[in-house]
């Protein structure tokens, strides 16, 4: 599997997480390579009205630009976009972002499945998705579609995830390309960066 990855170039990495993910991401961020050849989108379940603090928290951990995903914004390599609380984040064919205030899905808004799905349908094999710790099944179906459309799929290792349910649920349903150790998330992202550069 690692072989095929070495040859693949991605333009976008989407990370979906719920309970127990944020801590892991905050730990990973300082060790990320600062010249990312792709964009990262974070879709995190959380309480409402915590947006500015979340962006500040994340920004403090990396030199990479971390911004809230604005509607109509063009996705650019080298930036990290955070889905705002209480809106779904969708990806358009022209690689711009859209926000949607429709019903919650899987009891969640933002819903990870929706971002995974719309990202998969536009980026196809130029996409990687990582599903992290959480007590929800959100993201599992979307990850399956990512796989169907030839994207790279990964989950945080349920053995060391704070809440194993979400990544385990994915493993029960599908074979993923990567099972990422909880303290190796940065490594995984840097590896994607490296292989994307090699094939650029």
């Amino acid at each position, binding site marked *: 599997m690692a072989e095929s990855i070495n040859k693949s170039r991605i333009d976008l990495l989407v990370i979906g997480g719920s309970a127990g993910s944020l801590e892991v991401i905050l730990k990973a961020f300082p060790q990320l390579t600062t010249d990312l050849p792709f964009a990262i989108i974070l879709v995190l379940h959380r309480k409402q009205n915590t947006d500015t603090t979340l962006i500040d928290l994340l920004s403090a951990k990396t030199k990479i630009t971390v911004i809230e995903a*604005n509607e109509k914004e063009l996705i650019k390599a080298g930036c990290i976009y955070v889905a705002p609380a209480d809106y779904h984040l969708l990806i358009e064919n022209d690689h711009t972002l859209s926000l*949607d*205030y*429709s019903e919650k899905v899987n009891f969640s808004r933002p819903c990870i499945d*929706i971002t995974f799905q719309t990202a998969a*349908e536009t980026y196809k094999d130029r996409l990687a998705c990582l599903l992290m710790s959480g007590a929800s099944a959100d993201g599992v*179906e979307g990850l399956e579609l990512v796989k*169907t459309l030839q994207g790279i799929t990964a989950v945080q290792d349920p053995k060391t995830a704070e809440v194993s349910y979400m990544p385990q649920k994915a493993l029960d349903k599908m074979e993923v390309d990567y099972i990422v150790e909880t303290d190796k998330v940065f490594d995984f992202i840097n590896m994607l960066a490296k292989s994307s550069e090699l094939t650029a």
Partner: protein
Amino acid sequence: MQESAIRDEEIEILLNDLLELYGYDFTNYSKASIKRRINRLYSLDKFPSFAEFRYHLRNDAPYSKRFVEQITVNVTEMFRDPGFYKALREQVFPHLGTYPFIRIWLAGCSTGEEAYSVAIVLKELNLFDKSLLYATDINPEVLEKAEKGMFPLSQMKQYSENYILSGGKHEFSSYYSANYNLAKFDESLRSKMIFSTHNLVSDHSFNQFQLILCRNVLIYFDKDLQAKVFNLFDQSLENLGFLALGTKETLRFSSIASNFRQLNSEKIWRKV
């Protein structure tokens, strides 16, 4: 999860049918959301094929009504974003209080939760009697609900919390009476509301307002359509009037931006 059954090209075909046969123009809506809605409807109504789906839309006028109702997103809340209502209460209405008459337009009002929230704030500021609220939406079905002023009782705890956070000082429950699982809002609130269909895409300016609220509607429009609607609002707003958008919407990049000044932190602009 399967790939969307109805593909991009098919979405275009359906939207063109809707425009040609029924005059509803959704062609400048953000595609990803409309695609999701159409696919949702397709599986909800269990069509066996795109052809059958299209046939229904073209030949069954009542179905076109359902189609429009279902592809628009009507989710809303009372006192959604309490900080926004606090700004209305403390920074907008005090200005409008000096006018002899206050006309407010709620564009894309959905099932009316927003209109009743604004009415409550006006009441508490003693401005209600000289106000008129024009609440419009493209979707006639949501307007019918809005006119009834009945919302799920199960939501009242949340709404009451929002209300208090927004600076409300009364007992929120004094504004409604519980009726089985519904909260029926005070008839008097309804007395200053005018409900009407209005399509922001194709209908014109119909009055001059001191305040226009259009929240969480523009996120569904592409940039060109947003620009067009901003012009409509500019035309419909008196000098020194206010324009209020949703938390994630902005006037900043529009051509009318230079005519407006933003109030501190909220998405409220004043025409200057």
